[in-house]
């Protein structure tokens, strides 16, 4: 099944164009992937750290405005990351580092859903000096660990190419 998927991805117009246009699209996508990483870690990092108790005096909802950069960075990285996958599927689909990256990704995604589903309404009312409830603090810690895990697994891709 993975073989069929690999063959199909490689046969797509996007895969052929992405890899055969003079070689600039791969480095460019990598660069955008790193910029997206900083946008995501910068904004989510501040919000998670506030939930964990740093930055007293800042209302959660006021700081939460930075989340647009997390969404933008994430979108940028889904697009650039998909291009890598479409361009060189064999480097990823059978790569254990990629499996770890996807696993961290899925946990982080579930965590985001749980956070907005169960915590966000309560956190909206949090005052500038209030401590976040325990479930929100646990989710903030899971978020930080998972995004760091995504970065580490992503960097390991090069060293675990099949």
């Amino acid at each position, binding site marked *: 099944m993975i073989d069929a998927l690999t063959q199909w991805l490689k046969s797509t117009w996007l895969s052929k164009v992405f890899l055969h246009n003079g070689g600039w699209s791969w480095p460019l996508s990598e660069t955008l992937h*790193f910029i997206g990483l900083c946008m995501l870690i910068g904004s989510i*990092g*501040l919000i998670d750290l506030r939930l964990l108790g740093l930055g007293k005096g800042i209302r959660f909802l006021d700081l939460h405005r930075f989340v647009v950069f997390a969404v933008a960075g994430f979108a940028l990285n889904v697009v650039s990351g998909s291009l890598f996958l479409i361009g060189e599927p064999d480097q990823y689909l059978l790569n254990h580092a990629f499996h770890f990256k996807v696993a961290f990704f899925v946990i982080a995604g579930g965590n985001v859903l749980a956070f907005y589903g169960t915590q966000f309404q309560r956190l909206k009312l949090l005052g500038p000096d209030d401590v976040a409830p325990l479930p929100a603090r646990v989710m903030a810690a899971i978020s930080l660990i998972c995004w760091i895990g995504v*970065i*580490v697994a992503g960097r390991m891709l090069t060293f675990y190419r099949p």
Partner: protein
Amino acid sequence: MNAFFIWLESSSLSLWVRGESGADMAFPVIISLHAIGMGFLAGIASMINLRILGVAPKVPLGCLAAFLPVAWLALAINVVSGVLLLVGYPTKALTNWVFYVKLLCLAGALWGFLHLRRQVLLAPTPLSAARLVAYQRVAALATLLWVAAIVAGRLLAYTYIHLMS
């Protein structure tokens, strides 16, 4: 210069970084730490710049100083991991002009970060909106320099002329 590169590349620390002394996980670990440090340093510094530029206007600027220790830790991680990567591949970095562009961009971005920390985050009395405008040019420039440093850093893998001496 060549003799210096050859001497450094044959040192035990350089061999360790390149994974040629048995510990073949050194390089992946160092490069992962460099990426994590980048995320937190460039990320937090840029978010502070964006706050000065008008994003999340209700966040008190002085309170953002609480996040500075995280940025300093990330800076320390990246200075150490960056120096180790340089010891591992001195010829690769120092014979590539893009590496010097990266260092210059970093120097500018860090200067902007320190300047805004002192003048804005640690200001004895909170700055009025009108006075904050005076720092917006520095905040915009510093953010662009972080982006440029990341672009140059990523392109090091594609632009080097000599890998080793």
